[in-house]
């Protein structure tokens, strides 16, 4: 094994403190005025082949589905039946759209079944495909049973089952994008799962707040008040970890999307809390949280692509790391 774990080089002793917003956690990623060479400015790695809006859309929808199933299970057990129904239907709808998006994104859609040829823990997409294969029918059963009233016991079991699989659905996508060479994702792999969990939870909560009167959506509100701050904090930690690679997260179009997402998250949180007696505000808060979640996924996705496109994000940290190792 290499002595230097990827992305975690030895801390340079006597590091000068810079103070301010960003404390340098990872020196390799911080090369402010580094000059670097590239091959005619061409990217070193390839941008992921995943299409927009299919894949970021799936990140959002999948997260919404998984967290909704969790919310549905909790709501059901604690007696919030309407919320549970909304969440189950929402999960089914989201996961169905997800399936469409995923199959559509394949280069050979008719071969989507090949996803089930093998089970490979080394491939988050393989794990995810199997998760989806299990989760989809279960979430479907939960929703159908609730809507039709057929087999309620089985429906409850399915709800709980979906609630068990839901967290996986909502977080494995972080592994999906972080388990790549894309610097803007890979280097954020310690934070991304929590960001996704938070974002998914906000979306699920938002759906509940949007569609139900505040009183009926209390668990959703609770979820929002737990998840939104966690998400905001996680995002800060993620950006700090990325250092200079955070640049596309804060500039350009991805920067705009993520700033908007942040505003909407804060607004949605405030609205959820302040609007706990006001249907309109509560609904608005719900919509904000849903939008914020979507914008977050698109922003993260596009920021990542930007780090793949510009060779400096690949070369500079690696060059730094290599030089520090003394190899040349």
């Amino acid at each position, binding site marked *: *094994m*290499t002595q230097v*774990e990827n992305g975690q080089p030895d801390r340079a002793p006597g590091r000068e403190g810079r103070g301010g917003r960003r404390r340098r956690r990872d020196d390799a990623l911080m090369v402010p005025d580094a000059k*670097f*060479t590239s*091959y*005619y400015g*061409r*990217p*070193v*790695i*390839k941008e992921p*082949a995943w299409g927009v809006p299919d894949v970021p859309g799936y990140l959002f929808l999948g997260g919404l589905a998984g967290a909704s199933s*969790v*919310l549905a*299970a*909790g709501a*059901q*057990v*604690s*007696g919030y039946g309407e919320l549970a129904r909304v969440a189950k239907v929402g999960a089914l709808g989201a996961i169905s759209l997800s399936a469409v998006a995923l199959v559509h*994104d*394949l*280069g050979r*859609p008719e071969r989507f079944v090949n*996803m089930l*040829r093998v*089970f*490979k*823990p*080394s*491939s988050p*997409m*393989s794990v995810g*495909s199997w998760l989806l294969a299990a989760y989809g029918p279960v979430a479907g059963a939960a929703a159908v049973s609730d809507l039709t009233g057929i087999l309620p016991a089985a429906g409850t079991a399915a709800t709980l089952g979906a609630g068990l699989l*839901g*967290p*996986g659905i909502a*977080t*494995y996508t*972080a*592994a*999906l994008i972080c*388990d790549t*060479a894309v610097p803007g994702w*890979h280097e954020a*792999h310690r934070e991304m*799962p*929590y960001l996704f*969990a938070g974002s*998914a*939870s906000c979306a699920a909560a938002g759906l509940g707040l949007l569609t139900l009167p505040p009183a009926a959506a209390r668990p959703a509100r*609770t979820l929002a008040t737990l998840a939104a701050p966690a998400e905001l904090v996680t995002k800060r930690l993620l950006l700090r970890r990325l250092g200079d690679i955070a640049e596309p997260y804060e500039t350009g179009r991805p920067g705009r999307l993520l700033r908007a997402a942040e505003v909407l998250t804060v607004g949605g949180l405030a609205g959820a809390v302040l609007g706990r007696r006001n249907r309109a505000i509560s609904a608005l808060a719900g919509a904000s949280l849903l939008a914020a979640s979507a914008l977050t996924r698109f922003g993260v996705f596009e920021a990542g692509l930007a780090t793949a496109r510009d*060779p400096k994000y690949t*070369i500079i940290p*690696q*060059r730094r*790391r*290599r030089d520090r*190792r003394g190899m040349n």
Partner: protein
Amino acid sequence: MSVSTHRGAPFASGPADAGGGLDPAARSGYTDHPPRMGFFTDTSVCIGCKACEVACKEWNAVPEDGLELTGMSYDNTVGLGASTWRHVAFIEQPVVAAASTPAPAAAEGVRWLMASDVCKHCTESACLDVCPTGALFRTEFGTVVVQDDVCNGCGYCVGACPFGVIARREEDGQAHKCTLCYDRLGAGMEPACAKACPTESIQFGPLDELRERAALRVADLRADGQAQAQLYLDDPDDGIGGGGAFFLLLDEPEVYGLPPDPVVTTRDLPNIWKHVGLAAAGLAATGIALGLGRRSR
């Protein structure tokens, strides 16, 4: 359906044992397999003729992929991709001569680096690790090959490769890359590019022999004053476990468009799963907490 077994180092496609990095085929379950075969590309003798590009395309029926003048010196191929499996890079560098030479030009001279790039057939291969359909597999020669009849074009391999090698071809939606001429190897022949290369810049053979040869060659070049001559991806202890295709470069890797310190993303996967697990657990715990509340009537 089969469970892809990856023993040893978590989820990696190659060997984790130290001093290994030479037998990924065994790790993939082959017993009694031929020696690991690979490429040593000595760019110091490349003449930029692109016979490798043409031979590869002809043998593998790879389509033409772009009739556009790029202005990147003599490189109109630009980079590896689904329809370019050998790519010759050209880098023109000014060389400043000793002050004593009177010459009118600003640049006293030029150095022109030429290098034929190819899939590295990594010992720890990210594309192989992330492929969800098992289309990508390790051959008995230790090489990494895409099965064209299995790949469904999910594109995961594309973003996973630290070298930007594999890509999806628009015409058929599938991922394609160098096969190290798997069909030719099976017939006891060398890959088309190696055969076509007139100066033996592309050398094919058992990987351990190639590594020995390369070590001698780079030592010679250094002794001859070429201080920047270096081997790239020859070291089994590097971030990909060493490459099945490795190179002798005359400058830093990034000059050629290669990552200076590539590490296979799978190395971090255990950590990634750990955090996914914790996040999922956190979400599940939240769900349970929500369930503990009771609706007030």
